[in-house]
């Protein structure tokens, strides 16, 4: 397990990553001192509500914040031996799409409407293989389309994105992302825009391709079901901070943070009575411009202040340990609450 190892540097190692955007309304504190790591061939699931910082984290890894002049990034992002925060634009550009690639949420808007799907895939290949001629690149792209399960790939090669179905578009996006055998694949809610049946197919596809290519995968989602199915490790983010992380199985069976309990409680389950109501996390996600002091979750936390602990003071950040949590509640108290109050309603 990669999390917390101190000897050899993990393949992807992120330390104290902080991303803020200066806007007219104030400073948006999108990600605050988040640390995590990922080994090749493993899948890390990042879960959290909208605005929890999960997408911004991935954009920072790819260096896509760099075109926004108001973005400030600090901390360290190590991809093998390259440090990406201090790297030049050109260095990051060369890694982008090559060693690290990304799949986006809505494949229709993520594909250019005026270029054929094939041309866009060929472009992705040739930018990282400048010497390759068009014909070879085309064959490679068709081969890739075939591998992601697009029927009649040589014919579909010349189609436009709007001529593809939603699932096919996402397959084509995956083909585009994987064409350069990336060592790191970031999937930002890859199934959100898709039908349920297609979702399962896409997840299977990502898993199969991961086995084939041996990539490290970061799966960003708010769907805990996706995480349970694919992830080796889980990272729960709230208000731009990592509040719980650990092996997926462990986090699901023995969740530690009240917010994680809330997430699990709001997940529909087939083994429960359908008439039973889901338990939502009360309140709304915090504004990233004006984060609550201390533990950002405390205004929504049903257990905050129960034992007189000071929820408005800073919670120590998560750094080491296999399964760790950023919470003011004493561990024994948390275990008690989980056993007595949470488990029965999950």
């Amino acid at each position, binding site marked *: 397990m990669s999390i917390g190892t101190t000897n050899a540097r993990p393949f992807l190692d992120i330390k104290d990553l902080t991303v803020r955007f200066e806007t007219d309304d104030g400073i948006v504190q999108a990600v605050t001192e988040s640390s995590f790591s990922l080994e090749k061939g493993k899948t890390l699931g990042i879960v959290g509500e909208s605005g929890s910082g999960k997408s911004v984290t991935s954009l920072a890894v790819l260096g896509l914040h760099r075109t926004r002049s108001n973005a400030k990034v600090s901390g360290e992002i190590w991809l093998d031996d390259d440090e990406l925060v201090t790297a030049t634009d050109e260095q990051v*550009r060369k890694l982008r799409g090559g060693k690290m690639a990304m799949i*986006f949420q809505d494949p229709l808007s993520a594909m250019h409407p005026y270029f054929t799907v094939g041309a866009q895939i060929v472009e992705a290949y040739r930018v990282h293989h400048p010497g390759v001629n068009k014909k070879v690149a085309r064959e490679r792209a068709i081969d890739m389309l075939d591998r992601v399960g697009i029927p009649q790939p040589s014919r579909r090669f010349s189609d436009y994105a709007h001529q593809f179905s939603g699932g096919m578009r996402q397959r084509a996006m995956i083909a585009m992302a994987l064409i350069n055998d990336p060592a790191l694949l970031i999937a930002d809610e890859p199934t959100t825009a898709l039908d349920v049946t297609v979702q399962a197919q896409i997840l299977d596809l990502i898993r199969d391709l991961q086995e084939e290519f041996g990539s490290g995968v970061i799966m960003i989602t708010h769907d805990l079901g996706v995480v349970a199915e694919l992830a080796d490790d889980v990272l729960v983010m709230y208000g731009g901070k990592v509040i719980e992380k650990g092996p997926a199985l462990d986090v699901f069976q023995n969740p530690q943070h009240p917010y994680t309990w809330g997430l699990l409680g709001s997940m529909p389950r087939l083994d429960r009575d359908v008439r039973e109501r889901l338990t939502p996390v009360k309140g709304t996600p915090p504004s990233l411009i004006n984060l609550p002091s201390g533990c950002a979750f405390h205004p929504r936390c049903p257990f905050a202040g129960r034992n007189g602990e000071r929820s408005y003071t800073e919670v120590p950040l998560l750094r080491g340990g296999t399964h760790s949590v950023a919470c003011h509640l004493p561990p024994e108290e948390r275990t008690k609450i989980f056993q007595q109050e949470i488990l029965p309603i999950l």
Partner: protein
Amino acid sequence: MLTYIIRRLINAVITLLVVTAVTFAVFFMVPKLTGSDPALLYIGKTSDPAAIQGIRVKMGLNDPIPVQYGKFLKGLVVGRDYDNGPDVTHCPAPCLGYSFKTEQAVTPLLLNDLPVTFSLALGAAILWLIMGVLTGVISALRRGTILDRAVMTGALAGVSLPVYFTGLLSSAVFVYWLGWLPEGNYVPINQNPGEWFVQLLLPWITLAFLFAATYARLTRANMLETLGEDYVRTARAKGLPERVVIGKHALRSGLTPIVTIFGLDLGALLGGAILTENVFNLRGLGWQALSAIKGNDLPVILGVTLIAAFFIVFANLVVDLVYGLIDPRVRLG
């Protein structure tokens, strides 16, 4: 694609038909309703009744309105004969009738004006397209900088200042004060291309300034919108160099709406740039239109209107067809 073209063509023809009907109604029926007799306009108020009656017969003014419109349409398509017993005047297609004032046929009169208007419109169009798009793109890429603000302020001035102000001001400065350009007199391109160019330079710049301002603002807005699109982010995520991201992916969709507006603007201008032509004394369609309006010369006004309408409809058609070529979603939709 073929059905798309045919559908567009039919649309264009129907639109033109409607335009002829409306203009015909406005220019020949309205005077009648308000009590002024077109026959009197032709021949003068003091003429004797027999002559007026003769004109009525000759011009077909006694026929029922639909018949008159039918003859008018026929004149447009195949030409018509104005028949007054012994005195037959043939008006070849497209027949737009005769001027009240000069009794010249309207069609050759207007055809004579076309080269002037074309020279003005096409030259200005090339200029404003280059200026507008270039400054718009630069402004979008340098958003929020001093350069962006300066360009946008200039564009605001361009949009707000009317041609009769910028035109007269630039004439005053470049012709009369600095003496860099000669005092205006249009010279046909086939007579002396160099002189043609020099004479049209100021009108071009004046007209182009007005449009370039609009185009700069439009291009900037389009580019900014496109730069925020997911597919531009995808292009970056692929590791494409920024110049490809901007020059290929963003420009391709950022400039597509410009094609529409450019076609329509150019089409509208080909029907005559009334202000610019009058400010610079260019005897084109716009100049002709203004003098016809001043002289209450209905057939000429109608002729200019129809030509202008024709160019606008034609430009619309071209834009639709070009759109089918550049946007695959239109082609197949």
